[in-house]
């Protein structure tokens, strides 16, 4: 237990001193804020770019707070995942490459503790980043649009974003535990992320049960408008956390077996 707390503190201090906390939080907030800001500016952008297209009439429906929230949710799929891959890819592979893991793993701490401390410290930062992003995006949505949005469904969708991010994070930690260099870990994690995301979209019925469901514009709209119950998102959220647990379990198992 002592070792786990010490490792968690060390990870958080490392992420603070190496600016990883800043990169994750700022990256997430900037991605999320694009939702309300771009939605607000979209009519102006289209109007200014359509000046040269004489004779073509473009009708833009009035943008609402709901459009801004849906845009925010969709923004949380791609760029934040890339940030997580880039920041976390070296977490184990980098320590192995530099030889710093020997210093820790010859002390009375297990490799599982070592991996869990890394995973949960990053997860904590990612959750805080998502909460701050949600607050900032919600605030700007209310500021930029005259109408409001339902808070309950918004919170459920954000919980879905957390579940999805916890699974992406676990995927990167697994790759970092298996591969020798951070670049290889990042590359494989990126390919894995693309393959799994596309596989889920391709197979009928899968989108609704995997955490990727949160980024489905149609499903998210239905939840936000009350057409479907937010309870429909419970299964994808649970599956997201289960996928994360399985991937982290695999990372711990492979690392325990691995030669230093």
């Amino acid at each position, binding site marked *: 237990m*002592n*070792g786990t*707390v*010490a*490792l968690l*503190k*060390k990870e958080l201090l*490392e992420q603070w*001193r*190496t600016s990883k906390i800043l990169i994750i939080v700022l990256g997430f907030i900037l991605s999320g804020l694009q939702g309300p800001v771009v939605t607000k500016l979209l009519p102006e952008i289209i109007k200014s770019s359509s000046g040269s297209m004489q004779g073509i009439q473009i009708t833009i429906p009035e943008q609402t707070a709901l459009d801004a929230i849906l845009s925010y949710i969709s923004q949380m799929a791609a760029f934040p995942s890339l940030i997580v891959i880039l920041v976390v890819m070296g977490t184990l592979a980098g320590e192995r490459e*530099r*030889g*710093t893991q*020997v*210093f*820790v*793993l*010859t*002390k*009375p*701490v*297990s490799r599982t503790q070592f991996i869990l401390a890394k995973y949960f410290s990053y997860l904590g930062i990612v959750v805080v980043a998502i909460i701050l992003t949600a607050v900032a995006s919600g605030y700007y949505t209310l500021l930029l649009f005259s109408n409001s949005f339902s808070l309950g469904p918004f919170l459920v969708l954000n919980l879905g974003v957390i579940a999805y991010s916890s699974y992406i994070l676990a995927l990167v930690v697994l790759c970092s535990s298996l591969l020798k260099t951070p670049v290889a870990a990042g590359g494989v994690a990126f390919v894995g992320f693309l393959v799994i995301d596309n596989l889920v979209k391709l197979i009928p019925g899968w989108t609704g049960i995997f955490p990727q469901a949160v980024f489905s514009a149609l499903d998210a709209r239905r939840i936000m408008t009350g057409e479907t119950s937010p309870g429909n998102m419970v299964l994808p959220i649970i599956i997201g956390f289960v996928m994360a647990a399985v991937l982290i379990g695999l990372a711990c198992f492979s690392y325990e077996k691995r*030669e*230093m």
Partner: protein
Amino acid sequence: MSDIIVCQGLTKQYGIRKVVDNLDLKVPENIVFGFLGPNGAGKSTTMKLLTGQIKPTAGHAQVAGADVTRNSLQARQHIGYLSEMPNFYSWMKGQELLEFAGELFGLNPPTRRARAKELLQLVGLADAGGRKVGAYSGGMRQRLGIAQALVNRPKVVFLDEPVSALDPLGRRDVLTLLDNIRHEATVFMSSHVLADVDRVCEQVSILDRGRVIAAGPTVELKERFALPAINLEVEGDPAALERLSAALRAESWLKRVTPGEPGRLHLELTSAAQAQEAGQRVPRLVSELGLSMRSFQSAVPNLEDVFLQVVNRDERGNAEPTRPEVRV
């Protein structure tokens, strides 16, 4: 004196290659133990096995009463380890790193803070404790590595080449430190600097191709294996000196002549029984060649002689086939 490290049939195999081959080893408590061998002999792999970093293919090992091959976590509570090329978190300060190491061993905050300061003082880094490790030189990192290996007051300290990155003064300080901590802990060290091992190690094991080929108290190994040698100093014409070297090489009792400074020769004899013959022949040859002898002394055998003798490598670096283990 009980044994604090016991290995029985310890084997580590990668593919068909046995890096550590059926190793049996016993190390008594509170000594400085030297673990020697040529490059690739399996020293670092053995240390990794004994510190629980890797699992053996066969056999088992006990360190400080715990089976390190089955429950390395328990054994690691009592050991300290410094790797051959130590690398630490560059973003941490020296003092922080030692406190973090103490925290991993469960030391409370005031204890680990005091221990970190004490160790920084001990390894000569008291002024650098507030600096980031990334700014440390190789020698400073090695000193810090020794400090972190001692943070838990271990029963056994494994040091893989602990003086390799140090300058002569640093080496002297670290060797004195190792000499002092033998009262608290057993030091198990590997080194290529045989003079250092000779200076501090009471016992040594010499490893070659994963097997112990000689083991025992350093003094006894030297008596047993070091070839008798003579240091000769003569004065005279350099051409005559060349002729003396040539004449000596033709003698059956001589194994090797190593020229030193001008006029000095180191003569290795084939066995101790030849010493008397050498004592008669050398002065005669010196006289016949018109040289005058300034000194003729028996050389004190050292660990390097033992090492070369048991590892039995020729001057081109080729090894002879594996020899059976010799224990003194």
